[in-house]
């Protein structure tokens, strides 16, 4: 009987050995959902892996692709990978937060961060009041009896784009702040998709481009 009790312990030891490249010392991977599918978010386990011809382009004309300021707004908190993973596991899971991919739809479709939904920056930047209302309602905003937009139950948005050279998040923030979305409910993942890729973290492909 004692031997049987020891089995799960040894099995867990063997299982734990499989994760060579953990996210942190204590977190080997996390789970989230995307398109209704359970997704294991982990890092590439091949210790010899390099990014090759995949988000490795270093130089684009500036302007418009200039290095972004560290903060978009003093009141908007910045996020990095660990905060985003934590957000994924808590706020996204319980429905109080959403990860927003602010890039153009075509960029999002090629590859994105797990559980992120796409709200391209031009849609928000050029939204009419009624369109903004429609979008904000989906994001949890309510309308008071006097017609005031009430953001108390609005979701927290963790917004990202391509990375430090990309201004799509900044444009998104400009658009959403125009309609007074609370700054306390906005987060900026500045390293963006390139930072995510650099760590070999799991990504989602919505549209595969096949060549014959």
């Amino acid at each position, binding site marked *: 009987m004692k031997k049987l009790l020891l089995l799960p312990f040894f099995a867990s030891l063997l299982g734990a050995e499989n994760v*060579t490249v953990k996210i942190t010392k204590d977190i080997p991977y996390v789970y989230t959902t995307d398109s209704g599918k359970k997704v294991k978010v982990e890092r590439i386990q091949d210790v010899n892996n390099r990014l090759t011809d995949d988000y490795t382009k270093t130089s684009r004309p500036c302007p418009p692709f200039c290095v972004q300021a560290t903060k978009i707004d003093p009141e908007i908190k910045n996020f990095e990978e660990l905060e985003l993973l934590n957000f994924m596991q808590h706020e996204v899971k319980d429905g109080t937060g959403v990860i927003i991919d602010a890039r153009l739809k075509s960029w999002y479709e090629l590859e994105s961060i797990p559980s992120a939904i796409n709200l391209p920056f031009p849609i928000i930047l050029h939204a009419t009041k009624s369109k903004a209302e429609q979008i904000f309602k989906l994001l949890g905003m309510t309308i008071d009896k006097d017609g005031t937009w009430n953001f108390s139950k609005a979701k927290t948005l963790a917004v990202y784009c391509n990375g430090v050279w990309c201004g799509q998040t900044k444009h998104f923030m400009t658009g959403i702040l125009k309609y007074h979305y609370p700054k306390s409910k906005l987060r900026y993942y500045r390293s963006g998709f390139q930072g995510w890729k650099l760590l070999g973290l799991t990504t989602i492909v919505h549209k595969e481009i096949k060549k014959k």
Partner: protein
Amino acid sequence: MLNQDEYNQDEYNDYYKNETKESELKSFIKQKEKGFGGKLIALLILMVLAIAGYFGYNTMKNSSNSDALPQTTQETVTENKLQKETNSSSKKTTLQPEVSKQEVKEKVQTQEEVTEESTAGATNVQEEKATATNLSTVQEEVVKAVSTESTKMSPKEIANVVKAVMEQMNQKREKTDVQAQTVTTKDGELMNKLSSSEVDSVSSDLEKSLNDTNIDENTHVNNTEKQVDVYNKVNVQDVKGSDTLSQLAKQITDITNEAISQNVEEKEEGQDKKINYTQNLKKELITRENEMRIIVVQKGDTLGKLAKRAYGNVMEYKKIYQANPEITRPDRIYVGQKIRIPN
């Protein structure tokens, strides 16, 4: 909430402590070596082992492996050698695990021999499969031995056996890592020496060997099934979810599509009008699309053939080879494999 800075500081402190302890012990050994002799050294080594602990030691070893480049002897590889390697590897048969009814420790020894054999040559998927099969057999044996009452093993013995199995797994992982780099370096050198015609002839031979055997196809079938490739990309192209998040995504996508149909993406305001940001983004998208372009390997495909099809020149296969680091040898592609075709 996790704090990255704090975490990194803790990790650094732990690492630094271990480093300091090691260096202190080394200097202590040097000082006392003359006075106390071999016994004291042996005692100190045991102490170091006890402090480091088994798992801590493994972690340190893994991290140092990932940083250090393996030093390998470079061989001059000729076309004949490549052909020889290819032929011999295609002729190799799958190693069958021998299940002994003797003690489990004997099984671990057998496993050691098999692992040594399998890692002796170039990286071979078939050998890896055999090693993995043997490893799982050893594990099964352990489970069987523990669960049957007839086998009398104390928990300590079980712990020893499991530890031995884990050591085997670690050794195997290290050897595979070193081999992968060795083979890649060797191939890089080989590629530079081959002429266009040589690549063509090698390609046709390899095509033949590919047709003769479906080893790789069978080995990699699980990866395709899981929809997760070696780059941790999960393909959800044909997946439609019905959970709350998916529904929200769908509703927002509908709004997005409607706006796109009204050319909202094309609108530019103020300074942006001059810069035309979205147009520039779309230009950059072409680069990205080219990076993301893949082909699915069909029967008879070789890197040379794919290069000829994509770029009109067989020698351009290097481009494809370099853009796909999971291909450890140019002749090792399999039917159904997704390969990136760079621009």
